[in-house]
């Protein structure tokens, strides 16, 4: 009965990787449709939302196939998106077959980030320092802002690893990052509290959900657009609440 079942599994796996690591909805739907058609299914329809994927099709003998898969976690890894995109292109062109595509997808999904963790910490420090210069034009604030940005990413990774609660760990990360920034400024390193805190929280900004939400909404994928928009808004609110807690502790 399920001669095309493994093909549907393959398509769903590719779509899951795409959505999990930050592709837009229309791209995930597009590669799933193309792969299913190239593998011999007819009347293919896919429906991708931010939290689950559906794919249906008709086999040669007239049987219907319909499967769904649930997406629980979402991360930021644009390299995996690019690799799955390339793999789907190879599969549609016929350069690799089903078994090989499945093996490659397993390899992609198990692969580590292509930068080591310390480089990501350093990058968020650099991003914090550079952004605070772009906003405020003072060189003295760059070093404390870099320290703050580094600390907030450090805390984010730490809390995410131990708590597994996305929004709460973002709240805690921005809280401890702001505490670091405020302590540095009050002990004399840096001139303006505002610019140091802006640099501190900028590595936490939800860039991928925010951009993808707008793209999805304008593309007509209203459900996933709204879901991603809600995710981005909740992240932004968690960050703002963290900073607000830290600032109001230091206000009196």
């Amino acid at each position, binding site marked *: 009965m399920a001669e095309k079942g493994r093909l549907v599994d393959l398509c769903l796996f590719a779509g899951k990787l795409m959505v999990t690591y930050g592709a837009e909805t229309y791209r995930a739907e597009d590669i799933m449709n193309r792969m299913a058609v190239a593998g011999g299914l007819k009347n293919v329809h896919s429906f991708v939302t931010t939290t689950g994927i559906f794919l249906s099709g008709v086999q040669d003998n007239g049987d219907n196939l319909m499967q769904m898969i649930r997406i629980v976690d979402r991360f930021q890894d644009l390299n995996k998106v690019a690799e799955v995109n390339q793999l789907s292109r190879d599969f549609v062109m016929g350069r690799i077959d089903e078994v090989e595509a499945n093996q490659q997808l397993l390899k992609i999904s198990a692969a580590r980030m292509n930068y080591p963790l310390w480089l990501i910490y350093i990058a968020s420090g650099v991003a914090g320092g550079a952004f605070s210069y*772009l906003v405020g034009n003072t060189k003295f604030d760059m070093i404390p802002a870099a320290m703050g940005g580094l600390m907030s990413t450090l805390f984010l990774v730490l809390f995410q690893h131990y708590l597994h609660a996305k929004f709460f760990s973002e709240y805690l990360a921005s809280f401890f990052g702001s505490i670091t920034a405020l302590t540095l400024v009050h002990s004399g390193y840096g001139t303006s509290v505002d610019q140091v805190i802006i640099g501190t929280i900028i*590595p936490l900004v939800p860039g991928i959900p925010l951009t993808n939400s707008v793209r999805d909404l304008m593309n007509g994928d209203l459900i996933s657009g709204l879901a991603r928009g809600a995710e981005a808004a909740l992240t932004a609110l968690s960050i703002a609440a963290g900073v607000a807690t830290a600032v109001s502790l230091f206000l009196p």
Partner: protein
Amino acid sequence: MWELLICFMATVAFAIIFNTPSRLLWRIGLIGVLAWTIYSSIQDINVSFIAAAAVAAFSASLMSYGLSRHHRVPVTTFAIPGIIPLVPGGKAYETMLAFVEENYIEGLTQGAATLLHAGAIAGGVVFALSIFSIGRGVDQRYET
């Protein structure tokens, strides 16, 4: 010149945070520099920051589309880090601070400015998207 170097560093750092392929890093940095140059030089001739953000986001995503066609990678690889220098982080912080200090009028003013700024960036990105998808819109999405 110093400012452009800083902007390049910020964009590349964000590209590393988002884990983009390493062979594309310096091109992403150039997109960020382009966006920032347009954003600040348009503001220098007395145009409002909203129009400046829209034009800068439009040019950055246009360049991202061109590069993504050339390198055969998804356009988000270029577009997401490329528009990061335009993000209204400062205005969002001012909004939050005004509300914390119970200065609600100032908070609403800054909040409206933040929303308009973010909306302008989104508008620029979407306008570039629609230019690149003319002629392949409907029949590609509903192909069976």
